[in-house]
């Protein structure tokens, strides 16, 4: 007799085999290979759309959310089985988005029924793409000093101010945004609101990154009317929502430390440029040693990620543990790309050539430098670990 879970595993594998298009089992190589959803789906390939829609229909883009909000309603154990089977078949993630990894969990905890019913299913099916309006020119690590103000105008708030580093603001449909509703109270004067990026008065201006891409923007609000029903949680209590969401953001960013399944591009790359000696070892012994010691950490961190998710689902994780995950995962990812650049040598320095796929690795390497800045810097994560996990004084 198969246990229920074994039964579920067998069914899941069969369904994935039947439904995951072959193109969606190839490794993710560029940004274009990730699917973000949204109103405008014209940039998606047919296979991407098919895979997102099929998974979305079953609620498996967000397997552990309740069914009534578009999720799969799976238990922690079933969710783990689904992830394991997806990894075994090398299925790509059908949909990644700030809606899934950040806003969704916050709405599930702090949203009212109408907000959950309105927004969650659209996130699950990839219909609406969200961006995050937290940082401002003068509120970075010290986020709670934010100044974008929202005035109470009876049935709506009037929002004025500026956000910065807003990732994908120019491609996003809606924004979740921190605004100041009480200028006399730092932490208890912040509210968490949602609004459509097409609302009159919203404008974005892309910023060019050192990687040569412009994935983020300055975002301006000029007399933007936000309906009162779009306030999440209580007025002036937005900081609680913001912090809860940050925990989920950090969890997501920490996943970058994992590198992904399939062939290891670091080892493959080194083999190609450096070659193996007669004993089958990488011919550059010092780089080989660095890679080998890095791989120990990478594999150990993969175990830690599994442990962290298991603990989280069982309610056993320390609430500040995402800070540790974010810190370790992003520092690890930066090391990985430094080694990839070292392994690639001058081949990987080409910025535009066909051979370098338009400087793919060089740009990816530069992009990773933001990992330990976005979502709260490494130093801020260490402050949080020191204060909340180790209970060190006056941190």
């Amino acid at each position: 007799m198969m246990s229920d879970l074994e039964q579920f595993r067998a069914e899941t594998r069969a369904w994935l085999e039947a439904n995951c298009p072959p193109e969606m089992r190839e490794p993710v190589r560029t940004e274009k290979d990730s699917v973000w959803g949204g109103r405008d789906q014209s940039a998606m390939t047919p296979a991407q759309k098919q895979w997102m829609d099929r998974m979305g229909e079953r609620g498996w883009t967000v397997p552990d959310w309740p069914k009534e909000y578009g999720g799969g309603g799976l238990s922690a154990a079933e969710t783990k089985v689904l992830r394991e089977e997806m990894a075994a078949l090398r299925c790509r993630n059908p949909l990644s988005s700030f809606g899934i990894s950040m806003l969704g969990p916050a709405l599930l905890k702090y949203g009212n029924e109408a907000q959950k019913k309105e927004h969650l299913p659209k996130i699950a099916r990839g219909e609406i793409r969200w961006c995050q309006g937290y940082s401002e020119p003068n509120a970075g690590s010290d986020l709670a000093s934010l100044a974008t103000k929202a005035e109470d105008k009876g049935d709506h708030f009037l929002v004025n101010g500026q956000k910065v580093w807003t990732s994908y603001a120019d491609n996003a449909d809606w924004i979740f945004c921190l605004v100041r509703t009480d200028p006399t109270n730092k932490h208890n004067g912040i509210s968490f609101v949602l609004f459509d990026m097409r609302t009159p008065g919203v404008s974005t201006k892309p910023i060019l990154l050192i990687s040569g891409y412009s994935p983020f923007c300055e975002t301006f609000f000029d007399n933007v009317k936000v309906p009162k029903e779009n306030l999440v949680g209580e007025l002036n209590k937005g900081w609680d929502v913001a912090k809860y969401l940050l925990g989920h953001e950090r969890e997501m960013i920490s996943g970058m430390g994992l590198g992904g399944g399939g062939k290891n591009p670091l080892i493959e790359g080194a083999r190609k440029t450096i070659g193996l000696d007669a004993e089958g070892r990488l011919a550059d012994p010092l780089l080989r040693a660095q890679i080998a010691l890095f791989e120990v950490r990478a594999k150990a961190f993969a175990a830690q990620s599994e442990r962290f998710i298991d603990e989280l689902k069982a309610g056993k994780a320390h609430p500040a543990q995402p800070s540790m995950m974010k810190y370790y995962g992003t520092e690890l990812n930066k090391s990985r790309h430094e080694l990839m650049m070292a392994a690639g040598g001058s081949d990987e320095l080409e910025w535009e050539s066909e051979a370098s796929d338009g400087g793919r690795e060089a740009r990816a390497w530069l992009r990773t430098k933001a990992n330990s800045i976005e979502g709260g810097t490494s130093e801020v994560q260490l402050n949080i670990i020191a204060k909340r996990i180790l209970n060190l004084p006056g941190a």
Partner: protein
Amino acid sequence: MPLFLNDEQSMLRDTAKDFVGEKAPVSHMRKLRDDKDATGFSRDLWKQFAEMGFTGILVGEDHGGLGLGHVEAGVVLEEIGRNLSPSPFLSTAVAAVEALKGTGHAERWYPGILKGETVAALAIDEGAKHRSSVGLKAERAGNGFRLSGRKQFVTHGHVADLLIVAARTAGAADDEAGVTLFAVPQGAAKMSVTPERLADSSLAARIEFDGVEVDADAVIGEVDAGRDPLGRLLRAGRTGAAAEMLGVGAGAMDMTVNYLKERKQFGTLIGSFQALQHRAAHLYSEMEVARAAVLKAQQLLDAGDDSTGSGGADAAVSVAKAMTGMATMLSVQEGVQMHGGIGMTDEYDIGFYMKRQRVLAEMFGDANFHADRLAQLAGY
């Protein structure tokens, strides 16, 4: 299976914590050291380990043991590590029990181990660094074998009732095949055992085999197929050493974090200095990652995974040993540094953690050995 301790395992941890913390705290080790105890551990305590059922954790129920796994053995080892308790638990109840599993020797040696009477030692290493080669010769002689060569770093070798010896019955030292594992009882003729005290005050023997004669039935498993039981021994030993080391690292980290909350300089607690906070938080992160690596290896071994590829249990064991080696080394180094001058004194315990970590890090291969091994498994 979720990657955390289940309820029974957590209960065992609480039991082990109380038991080891009460019977063999660091002061117990300090006293054995100050007394220059010739055994190096307390036989009385070993009996009590047996009474608690600990020595039977990895022994199957058909042999009267508890039939539990590496996770449970690791739970006990971590407490041994945290208290720096000298004990033959790792060599005997973990590595030897696994090596003998499923062989004719289980019948003979398990009862004594279950009673806390038998102590086993592992004669594997031949040079100062752990390697996979085996050079000690075992030649056929009469109805058995004659062993010649030398071993070192044989923890408890001077008092062991049973020595598990890796020997070469065919081929050359670096060959994979042609290794045979032998069970050699204490007091065999033409064997000279010299105990040496190590930096952590534990005792490990150098052993000379000058034509030591053993019967054919001393062979563990099959002749020339010793990599099999040796593989079990090493997987268990490495995972166990990693678990014990995790306890050492955690113990040192706890001491250090507590000290940061007590010691005042410049009119304030030193734990309020961000330079130290960040180092402590970084250390915490490394230790968490190491803990996950150890649990992963234990669970894979318990699930019966004996795959030797780069994604299987064997690789996970090397990840665990290497990662724990690195993380706990950081822990003891930061521990001494953040204690300032007092951390350098013999009277204070933190230095003991540094010494024990160094010994466990070296045992069954250090972080470099295992990183190299992983690279080989992954084909680079």
